[in-house]
């Protein structure tokens, strides 16, 4: 079977699905904050969309992929870390513009763009309810440029964390030119989840706790919204994982595509499902009750863990990964109270922990090279190495940006505004006005002198 347009049609859909993940995340996160911060939380995601999509066209794609998809890089060392941002600036020379030979390169651009957006939006969960919107809008372009694009290049663009010559795996496990044990990261355990999780941790530390953290109630204000968000994320994740299939030499026909995408789809689903189980079982044991927030969190944790592993495990292996991840993340979300950092919506507990579990689990559960399937220790070492490198890279870059912003413009809103309502002080709005027939229990006449154009 030829690969044909079916494969590209799916990637078009996949790009759309991943784009939907960011509004989905906005709901997932928004429902989890207090009602006075729901809009600010959602606006962080929408702000990431607003800024990153144009940036991706301008230099993001070039910086992540231009060497490999466009002309060849010089082969210099820096090219292992990121590609030339100016080489295909503004998508210059990327094929597929109107009237040109298509080849689907712009479909890939679209698909990859959505990854940059959602990864950055994920970070915002760590800093709910206390940050100047302007500071966030400054953080976004710097972080995506210096943390995400390079890691995407390293992992997906043939750079340092891929199996390429001169890469990390090559340093570890190939003697003189022999093939190395290629790192496995199907859809972004490292570049996406570990990256976002570490960034969340660093931001939470640099920015500090919400007023009243650990002493005042801060419970989710709208759990149906959280569950809706989890549902949309799950749906979108099929784009994320299944759409990440790439034709490799000799494995580029439609039959192979059908086999592998089917596997990825099933693995993605059963891992998320099993992670619900893992999470709520821990809750039942520890707290006495299975919660809906736990179920929604389990969905996301399972999806995070299967992200790097979805092409490397069997469906049964994916069930096991899901159970383990759900349970571990359910325990990990308590760490912030122990260590006293206010990772408000558990970016660390879900994305860093889930990303680590998924990335490293491949060393055990990978059907070709995992320990449990008779593989050696190499894959496990390689997986651990790329995870650690991603932690380091993201940690350092994020720290530098976060401190710079702290010094130059400051992160925190005014204390009074934080106490009162960040939605009102930062956005001049409030999320809900549900009072029956009052039509706003408050308020006077809109200033009709406002002139419009």
């Amino acid at each position: 079977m030829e690969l044909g347009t079916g494969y590209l049609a799916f990637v078009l859909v996949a790009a759309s699905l991943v784009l939907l993940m960011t509004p989905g995340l906005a709901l997932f996160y928004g429902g989890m904050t207090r009602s006075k911060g729901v809009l600010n939380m959602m606006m962080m995601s929408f702000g990431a969309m607003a800024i990153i999509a144009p940036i991706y066209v301008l230099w993001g794609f070039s910086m992540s992929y231009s060497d490999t998809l466009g002309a060849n890089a010089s082969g210099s060392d820096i090219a292992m870390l990121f590609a030339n941002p100016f080489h295909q600036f503004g998508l210059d020379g990327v094929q597929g513009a109107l009237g040109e030979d298509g080849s689907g390169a712009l479909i890939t651009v679209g698909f990859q763009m959505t990854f940059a957006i959602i990864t950055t939006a994920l970070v915002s969960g760590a800093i709910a309810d206390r940050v100047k919107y302007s500071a966030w809008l400054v953080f976004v372009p710097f972080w995506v440029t210096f943390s995400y694009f390079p890691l995407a290049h390293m992992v997906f663009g043939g750079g340092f964390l891929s199996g390429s010559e001169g890469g990390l795996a090559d340093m570890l496990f190939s003697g003189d030119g022999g093939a190395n044990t290629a790192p496995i990261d199907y859809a972004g355990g490292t570049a996406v989840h570990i990256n976002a999780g570490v960034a969340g941790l660093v931001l939470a530390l640099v920015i500090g706790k919400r007023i009243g953290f650990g002493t005042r109630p801060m419970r989710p204000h709208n759990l149906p919204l959280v569950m809706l968000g989890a549902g949309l994320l799950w749906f979108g994740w099929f784009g994320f994982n299944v759409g990440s299939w790439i034709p490799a030499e000799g494995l580029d026909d439609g039959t192979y595509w059908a086999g592998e995408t089917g596997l990825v789809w099933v693995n993605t689903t059963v891992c998320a499902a099993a992670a619900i189980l893992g999470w709520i079982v821990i809750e039942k044991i520890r707290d006495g009750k299975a919660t809906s927030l736990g179920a929604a969190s389990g969905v996301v944790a399972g999806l995070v863990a299967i992200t790097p592993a979805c092409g490397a495990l069997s469906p049964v292996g994916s069930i096991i990964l899901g159970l383990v991840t759900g349970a571990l993340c359910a325990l990990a979300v308590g760490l912030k109270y122990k260590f006293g950092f206010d990772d408000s919506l558990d970016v660390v507990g879900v994305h860093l922990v889930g990303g680590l579990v998924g990335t490293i689990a491949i060393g055990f559960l990978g059907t070709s090279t995992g320990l449990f399937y008779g593989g050696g220790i190499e894959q496990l070492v390689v997986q651990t190495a790329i995870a650690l490198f991603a932690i380091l890279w993201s940690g350092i870059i994020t720290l530098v940006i976060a401190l710079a912003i702290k010094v130059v413009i400051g992160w925190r809103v005014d204390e009074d505004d934080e106490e009162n309502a960040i939605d009102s002080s930062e956005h001049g709005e409030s999320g809900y006005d549900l009072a029956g027939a009052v039509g706003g229990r408050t308020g006077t006449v809109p200033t009709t002198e406002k002139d419009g154009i």
Partner: protein
Amino acid sequence: MKLVTAVIKPHKWEDVREALETFGVTGMTVSEVSGYGRQKGHTEVYRGAEYDIALVPKIRIEIVVDDGDADDIVGIVVKTAQTGRIGDGKVWVSGIETVVRVRTGDRDAAAI
């Protein structure tokens, strides 16, 4: 005139309303409030963090009545809203000086 204020369990509201209607009470003002008392709230758990929810939902009813009716009305509310379980609520009576019907400007007995 007297003001009878009753704080009761939400699911008793319908019964109380009917009993008062039967007695002849034609109006009242109702609000949703939270009660704090012997009846303890419950515990909620969000990602492992426990919250002690101290307040329980209650319905608060205000009824302006003629002096002579106050006792009967208190009696009716107490009887209908009673379940015998902790948290059934309180009823209290205070004096008011005047009451006016906005629509007509009628005062006191004529206003209710």
